[in-house]
């Protein structure tokens, strides 16, 4: 009998009740809590979910023929559907409840977007078809580009970057190309301490040296410290605004002016654009480049880790250096794909080149444009307002039980930041996060930003209802109180998830990255393989 049971908690699967009843089932499943072996353990060589001809002709001579088919068991369609459906039920998802990951903008993914992206005219079109046969597809790229430029007040946009970090790379390569074009060498990019990890990683990836700049007591960039560091070796700054503490940088224009004055450029990480879309245009704040995560602000689904899409809006100074290919509409109404061949004709001979094989994440463009057209200019403004309202509601509803480091300086933007200060000895942010899982919620972003101890960053987004937020707030409040009171049952949370806490140290010390077993008899996974104790 576990300590949790003694404290009156519901027994976990495979546990015993306080009365000694055994909760272990014969199948290993518990009602709707379903275990699922690996596909390799239930599949078979003779099984296939696709009916195919078996042509008898000989292959052409001289091929290095495979000695044996790849060693991968197959499944029939009913088995496949069941395998993945059962697995899906072990996931939390925005469709199930709030997913308040700060900086990740987990908002509802409208299903019209999915429907539209699957129209054969978008889904079943090859990237290298003659351009006359894809005018509608090029039209989507062009129309979305127009919106992104208008919403940000910028001059141009590079549509090909495949995710936020790829967009950061695009922006920094534009900066590097612009500096090279001036015949200068500037090797340093400044990055605030609170930045996303991708910022310093991207700067290094693009061949820059990264230097950190400190934050002030109000959680913003220290303008004086920044100015003191500026000089002829500075290529630019990468800044997140609203920043990762969920705060707007009120000195943004002054920061931009200072960086421009020494010949540098300003890159803005647009991960948090959702807070300000339709409320302020980054172009009016002196930004030179900013990526826009279509999978955040513009609702394309995160899909368990991608695909994303990271178009980069560019100032007039950087637009000439943007990557190929891109679209351009001429006076005759024809939309052209500008590639290596016609770059000069479209006055883009200084572009830094191609950064992925084709034209960008078309499947995300159709979804994002559908979303943007649904909201319109007025609806997008409401998006930002409701996102900020929801975050401030969370902040003010919890600041009496959770320490909120910057709450005194005023309202937050789209996310509320708390620390672990005041928890009982030995209790951490991790305990509260895992406790939220038992409460039926996905945890917030934890231990980020690094500038706040035991950070908890809550981004509700605008698609949460007030009653949904009230339930979340009540749960988080109760967990904060338990962490302060030293409720030890939190240490073993989660109790009611498909798995208890997983041993991440073991996974890293002895990496098992692929299945090494042999296919077993169909439908009979070996018990040792599915988690015998």
């Amino acid at each position, binding site marked *: 009998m576990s300590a949790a049971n003694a404290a009156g908690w519901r027994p976990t699967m495979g546990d015993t009740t306080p009365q000694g009843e055994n909760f272990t089932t014969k199948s290993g499943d518990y009602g709707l809590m379903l275990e699922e072996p690996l*596909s390799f353990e239930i599949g078979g060589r003779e099984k*296939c979910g*696709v009916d*195919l001809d078996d*042509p008898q002709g000989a292959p*052409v001579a001289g091929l*290095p023929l*495979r000695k044996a*088919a790849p060693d991968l068991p197959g499944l029939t369609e009913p088995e496949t559907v069941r395998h993945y459906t059962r*697995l899906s039920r*072990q*996931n939390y998802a925005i469709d199930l409840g709030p997913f308040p990951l700060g900086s*990740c903008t*987990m908002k509802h993914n409208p299903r*019209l977007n999915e429907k539209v992206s699957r129209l*054969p*005219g*978008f889904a*079943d079109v*090859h990237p*290298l*078809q003659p351009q*006359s046969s*894809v005018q509608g597809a090029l*039209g989507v790229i062009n129309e979305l580009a127009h919106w992104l430029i*208008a919403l940000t007040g910028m001059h141009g946009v590079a549509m090909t970057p495949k995710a936020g*970090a*790829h967009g950061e790379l695009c922006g920094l390569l534009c900066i590097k190309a612009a500096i090279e074009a001036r015949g200068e060498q500037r090797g340093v990019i400044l990055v605030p301490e609170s930045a996303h*990890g991708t910022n310093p990683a991207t700067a*290094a*990836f693009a061949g820059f040296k990264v230097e950190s700049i400190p934050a002030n007591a109000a959680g913003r960039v220290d303008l004086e410290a920044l100015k003191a560091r500026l000089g002829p070796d500075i290529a630019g700054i990468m800044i997140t605004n609203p920043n990762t503490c969920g705060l707007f940088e009120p000195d*943004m224009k002054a920061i931009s002016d200072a960086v421009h004055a020494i010949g540098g450029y300003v890159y803005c990480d647009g991960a948090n654009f959702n807070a300000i879309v339709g*409320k302020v245009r980054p172009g009016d704040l002196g930004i030179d480049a900013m990526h826009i995560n279509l999978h955040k602000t513009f609702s394309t689904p*995160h899909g*368990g*880790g*991608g*695909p994303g899409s990271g178009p980069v809006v560019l100032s007039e100074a950087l637009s000439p250096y943007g*990557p190929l290919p891109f679209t351009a509409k001429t006076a005759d109404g024809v939309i052209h794909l500008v590639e290596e061949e016609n770059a000069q004709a479209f006055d883009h001979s200084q572009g830094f080149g*191609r950064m*992925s*094989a*084709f034209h960008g994440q078309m499947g995300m463009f159709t979804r994002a444009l559908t979303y943007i057209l*649904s909201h319109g200019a007025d609806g997008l403004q409401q998006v930002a307002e409701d996102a*900020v*309202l929801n975050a401030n509601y969370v902040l003010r509803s919890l600041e009496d039980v959770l320490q909120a480091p910057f709450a005194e300086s*005023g309202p937050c933007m789209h996310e509320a930041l708390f620390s672990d200060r005041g928890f009982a000895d030995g209790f951490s942010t991790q305990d509260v996060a895992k406790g939220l*899982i038992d409460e039926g919620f996905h945890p917030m972003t934890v231990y980020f930003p690094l500038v706040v101890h035991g950070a908890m960053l809550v981004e509700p987004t*605008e698609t949460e209802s*007030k009653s949904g937020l009230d339930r979340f707030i009540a749960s988080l409040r109760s967990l904060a109180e338990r962490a302060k009171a030293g409720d030890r049952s939190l240490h073993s949370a*989660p109790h009611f998830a498909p798995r*208890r806490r*997983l041993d991440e140290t*073991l*996974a*890293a010390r002895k990496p098992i*990255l*692929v*299945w090494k077993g042999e296919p077993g008899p169909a439908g009979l996974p070996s018990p040792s393989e599915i*988690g015998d104790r």
Partner: protein
Amino acid sequence: MRYLPLTADDRAAMLGIIGATSVDDLFVDVPAEARLSGPIVGLPLHANELAVERHMTRLASQNLSAGSAPFFLGAGAYRHHIPASVDHLIQRGEFLTAYTPYQPEIAQGTLQVLFEFQTQVARLLGTDIANASMYDGSTACWEAILMAGRITRKSRAVLSGGLHPHYAQVVKTMARFTGDTIDARLPELSAEADDAAVIAAIDADTSCVVVQYPDILGRIPDLAAIAAAAQAKGALLIAVVTEPVALGLIEAPGNLGADIVVGEGQSLGVGLQFGGPYLGLFGCREKFVRQMPGRLCGQTVDAEGKRGFVLTLSTREQHIRREKATSNICTNSGLCALAFSIHMTLLGGEGLARLAKVNHARAQAMVARLAKVPGVSCLNTTYFNEVTLLLPQDAREVVRVLADRGVLGGVSLGRLYPGVEGLANGLLVTATETVTDEDIETFATELAGVLA
């Protein structure tokens, strides 16, 4: 608005609790001169589902979709039949609307899928291990070159002339900024792949040799010979596979000595989608694991000893390692990896081998018929499902006229290598299982008509 649950009463009540009089009070940190007072002028206002669907459907109808015409394009993106269950399953909200599995206790579905995906990719490519995906084949190719540089501590990459020119462009773009030396070449219009030229270019400073298999002209290079030559000079062989279905028929690159194998996984489960999102495959030898880019899923146990999966070895990654990370990649191609994995599960190894045979047989039928068109010859002796035809004239115009006649008749080498005169008459054509005898006959007839 249909996506915004807050009512006017809710907003008023929430402002009351916050202690603000209006929502504008919450934007006080935005300088007043930069704050927009109303919707941006000149942009449309909100629209209902019907209106938006109508607009998007009109745009979609301006495209000639592959399924509505005889279709023979490849060159790094391939049209295969995707079983209906694949798209159904990836639209389950638990997969579609989940985030990166940072909380493993409630993300075992995604994590187990990634573990299965990594296993499938490794077995398909013939590598010890594989990661949880990259953006696409071209970016995976550049990341592999960087990884080879870290392993060998050398920075000169030799690219085969058979490497997709867009992949080569991506590599050259990036190398310009990192200072790596790239030794690239154009393909020779000959039946033999460019193996000899590549082998001759390897020297003691070479970190890696990058060879596409099958190559951009559809030919099958001799990877084993190149691997031996690379090894003799202390360089790694990076094999690039843009058509993974080929690996149902021809030997896996890892089994022929490739040290790193990258690929474009779009062929299985993902679809054409006008070029993206696609799926970067990345496999390598186990001893290189700590130099790998991208996310890795690993097996472990939970507090009760049950098998479970987590993201692991994240000390290579940007969110832990920041500027010292092996790559800046964060979001990758999770949902595309799921689609690939479901399609692969439906096929199994034997099914993939059969699918590959069907593709090869369709290509043989296509070659036999098109080579009979007056003035047309086939360059290849070896191929999988794609070959290079030599036409008596510039192929770019031929492709355009064919499209006007309702035939999507391949990719001209002029589109891929603009301005390279020696290649202008080349036409890349592909036949997958989706191509019928009738399609081939229509193509041959129209091609003959255009050339006449």
